């Protein structure tokens, strides 16, 4: 089974809402489930399932934004249960509101939690980050965190947060982007940390990861988020396929590792 562990879906906005906030001529942005499923089907090899979550609520202008997007993910899961696995988004800057929303969506079955610390310019290991992680641990859910080269979400900051919760697994998405060597060093030292392959600049680091860290903690992912452009699933697949990995390794990265990881928090892929 092939699982894309990183896809952003958004409910379609009416044109009136779009033009109010965008310059004339700007192309509407976002991706609905109905637009995304044909993309999975068209991939060679076909993508069976995707792990989905919201986008605009990563830094929420109101607490309601998280609720709105997480509800959309739950609606999509009801409509397409065989194609999607859901994650809820939390913006830790909303304090108690964020914690309440975390409990709400986990209780409703979204047992994976997406956080993007650089969206709200919070250092991952700050007090608010620690508070949300402590709640996620209590709930037995899985945090998946965007990484990049900023002060907020770089692999070392995320690793410091993971170090404080050694009994909870977490995913460093994007393999650290340009800081993939930093992500590698974090994963060598922390057994509870996984990476995904989305936006990874140098695909050969997938092999390095499997050789030096292990074969079981790396997940195929695309970060697909837009109808046009964005990081498209076929391109993300090609990033892995171009390595001509042995079948056992390929199966692990494309789906088996994700199935096993999700199972560890009670999610059946």
């Amino acid at each position, binding site marked *: 089974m092939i699982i894309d562990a990183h896809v952003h879906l958004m409910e379609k906005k009416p044109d009136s809402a779009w033009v109010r*906030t*965008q*310059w004339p001529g700007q192309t509407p942005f976002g991706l609905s489930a109905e637009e995304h499923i044909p993309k999975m089907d068209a991939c060679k090899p076909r993508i069976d399932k995707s792990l989905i979550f919201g986008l605009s609520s*990563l*830094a*929420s*202008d*109101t607490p309601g934004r998280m609720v709105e997007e997480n509800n959309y993910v739950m609606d999509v899961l009801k409509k397409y249960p065989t194609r999607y696995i859901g994650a809820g988004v939390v*913006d*830790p*800057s*909303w*304090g108690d509101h964020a914690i309440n929303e975390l409990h709400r969506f986990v209780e409703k079955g979204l047992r994976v939690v997406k956080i993007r610390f*650089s*969206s*709200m*310019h*919070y*250092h991952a290991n*700050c*007090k*608010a980050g620690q508070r949300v992680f402590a709640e996620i641990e209590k709930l037995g859910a899985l945090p998946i965190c965007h990484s*990049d*080269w*900023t*002060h*907020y979400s770089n692999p070392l900051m995320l690793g410091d947060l993971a170090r404080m919760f050694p009994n909870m697994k977490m995913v460093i998405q994007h393999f650290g982007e340009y800081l993939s060597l930093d992500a590698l060093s974090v994963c060598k030292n922390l057994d509870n940390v996984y990476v995904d392959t989305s936006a990874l600049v140098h695909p050969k680091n997938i092999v390095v990861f499997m050789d030096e860290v292990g074969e079981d903690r790396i997940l195929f992912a695309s970060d697909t988020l837009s109808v046009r452009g964005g990081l498209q699933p076929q391109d993300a697949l090609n990033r892995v396929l171009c390595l001509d990995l042995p079948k056992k390794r390929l199966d692990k990265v494309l789906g088996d590792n994700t199935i096993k990881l999700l199972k560890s928090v009670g999610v059946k892929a």
Partner: protein
Amino acid sequence: MKIDVHNHIGFDPAYEIKRTADELVKEMDEAGVDKCIVFPFTTNPDLVEQNKLVKAAMDRHPERLIGFFLMNPRLPEMVDLMYGYKEQGFAGVVTDPRFGVDHGSKQFHELVECALTLDMPVWLHSDDKDTMRVYIAPLEAMLGKYPQVRFILSSMYYDSTGIAAKYKNVYLDTATAMSGSMTAAVTQPVGTHRVLMGANTPYGLLKREIDKLEYAEELTGFQRKLIYSENLKRLLKI
């Protein structure tokens, strides 16, 4: 007279730091600072509630504190809020890239146009140095598009000195200068007339900001006077 332009009050949820107006005024008294510009922690998204704390601080210490309100350009009610804050006596608007709105976006330009209409300066705050995903070209285009608007640009911004040298409607604060000599170096390309004392309390210290400027041999007494207060008086027309 000494006026500091960079002081947060309210609650920072990232690090769970609280700062009251009374605490700031006490620090001002100890450091010999006459007035301060105050605004919320930009890490706090609940800006309506945090702006209320700033308003209460302005009312409690009208001779000492000048309030700027925090604004998120994504809020649909932004313009109504801004008009309301002007009526309440706020002197300027603060915004920050943490709200996720690009300087080239329509929503950001609407904020600037509203500030222009209300005759308020725009404080472009930031808490990041160099790594943030702020593209400088849209920022420069925006600064050039609205030459009538007075901007205070955080010295955190990438190449803030270069930007301020190019756009004459841009003022810089001193918060990120590691020494007074670094501030003095800015005066060559930018001019002393657009540099403002800013301590970034409660993370920074008012006393330290003054020490930095006092111990910079490269600054003349006249230049210090400009940085301490005269530039801000001109900027705010007070």
